[in-house]
């Protein structure tokens, strides 16, 4: 999934550079990539948002 996420980022950057009129699509890809990044982090922590320490 990390591979897919970098592909999404590449697509967004390509649109910003070569197809700047497609800003909405590029920003949508940016948001999707952010969500996927956050999801992958939560998968890595098994949903344990709070570190394994005393609060």
């Amino acid at each position, binding site marked *: *999934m*990390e*591979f*897919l*996420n*970098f*592909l999404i*980022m*590449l697509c*967004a*950057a*390509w649109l*910003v*550079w070569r197809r*700047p*009129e497609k*800003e909405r699509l*590029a*920003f949508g890809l*940016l*948001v999707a*990539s*952010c969500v996927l*990044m*956050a999801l*992958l*982090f939560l*998968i*890595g*922590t*098994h*949903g*344990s*948002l*709070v*570190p*394994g*320490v*005393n609060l």
Partner: protein
Amino acid sequence: MTPPSRDPLRPVVAWAVIALIAVPVGAAVWLGVVQGESPCILCWAQRASMVLIALVGLFVLRYGPRPRYLGMAVLLGTWGVFMSLRHSALHLARDVGQGFAAPFFGAHTYVWAWLIHWVVLGVIGVLLLLLRAEQTGAGIREPGRVGRFAMALFLVVVGANALQAFATTGPPPFVGQADPVRFSLNPRHWVWMNEELRGRISLRGSWAIPQPDPAAVDTDPSPANGPLVDLPTLPVQSWERVSASLDGQITDLARDAVTGRFLAVTDRFGVYVLDSALSRIEQRVVLDHQYSIDLTPLAGAAFVGDTLALLATNKSYLLLRPDPAADADREWRHFRETSGDVTELRRSRFATVRARQMFVLSLAYDRQADELITVSVPSPRQRRLVVSRFARADLVLASEFMPRLATNLVLGGRGRSLAEYVVTGAVAVDGKLYAFSAAYSTLLVIDLQSRAVTAAYAVPGIEHPAGLAARESTLLVAQADGRIAVVEVPGI
């Protein structure tokens, strides 16, 4: 298009993107591909966060500093700081030099990620301070030469990241790994897996440990339902009572073999030295549990010579001493109430290894070994029965073990274990630890030399046992309500 010359901040943003992509993200690719240090699943997310911040920078170069870009950059910086701290917390408290993978310029990558995201937030703040209203107009802008270089560099470095990610984590639906193997161009060495998708989801993870109530442990009191079967029964010989007026429910009881005095602690942080008849209070304090270290309810008490050792459920401990010359002004900080003749010597915490993330409900003192002893109580997350011993000299862990079962004792089936017992009272006598479990109302006899449970007895008729003390050849099981069951134990 807006030409770059009208926007002096644009080259600054372009150089910031170049720096972010070239240094941390580019160095991470170099670490992975050249040095063979592959990122774990959490590292990947932090690297992706840095790339996304750089991508937002490209949006700013192309379309100007629109509010939603600035908002996204701040959100990514904040989330990145959180991710890095969450990741670092897995390793920061380990022993000296023990991190995850190799350090880089003296710090591990997850620490660098924290610093980088923190700097990103600072840079965003500075750029916002310098932003002028005329620079925020809408429309597509010419990124300029440096801006185009930033975009090209972004595509090259992120493309390299994508290739590294393909080799080390695989295509969807595979995700990154907790312990990734080193990078290789040979597909036979590629490891693609979904191991991280397994496991229980929880907000606090393994730290979601419910705190026990030392005065009202909620367990099955019937010995017949316990993990050990065919246990001999120890009948209660007689009943006694703490007739002195204590504030709160008793959470442990100890007896001084030399003087015959008793030490009782209650669920309202009361500490009482009682006479041998349990009828008169000789010394009394109510601890200020909010002073200094966090004290959860008191659950353990023991005489250590003329010192009173007290233990909270979270393994925080106190040492007190009856002292006719106690300084009232000095002790004011320690005690909310006092009889005026007690001095606090020390307040600190026991650190355990096997009993980490477990609470305790008992404290004993082994006079022969000069060690204090605790027994862990199980939780849904940690199902172990751990005996921890602390040297009196420095109050540091001396040894720790999970007692085995002697051959004369039999478990009632597969899946049953000693970890089902909830020890709420313990006392050490002649090299043996007597531990009373509120669960299944059972007395365990643990040989401290062989580290084995050598005997166990069912003791029916006990309600909310909270403490255990020894008096000559008998054991005194203190209930939370102040009643004390006297039982005679063979061999004591």
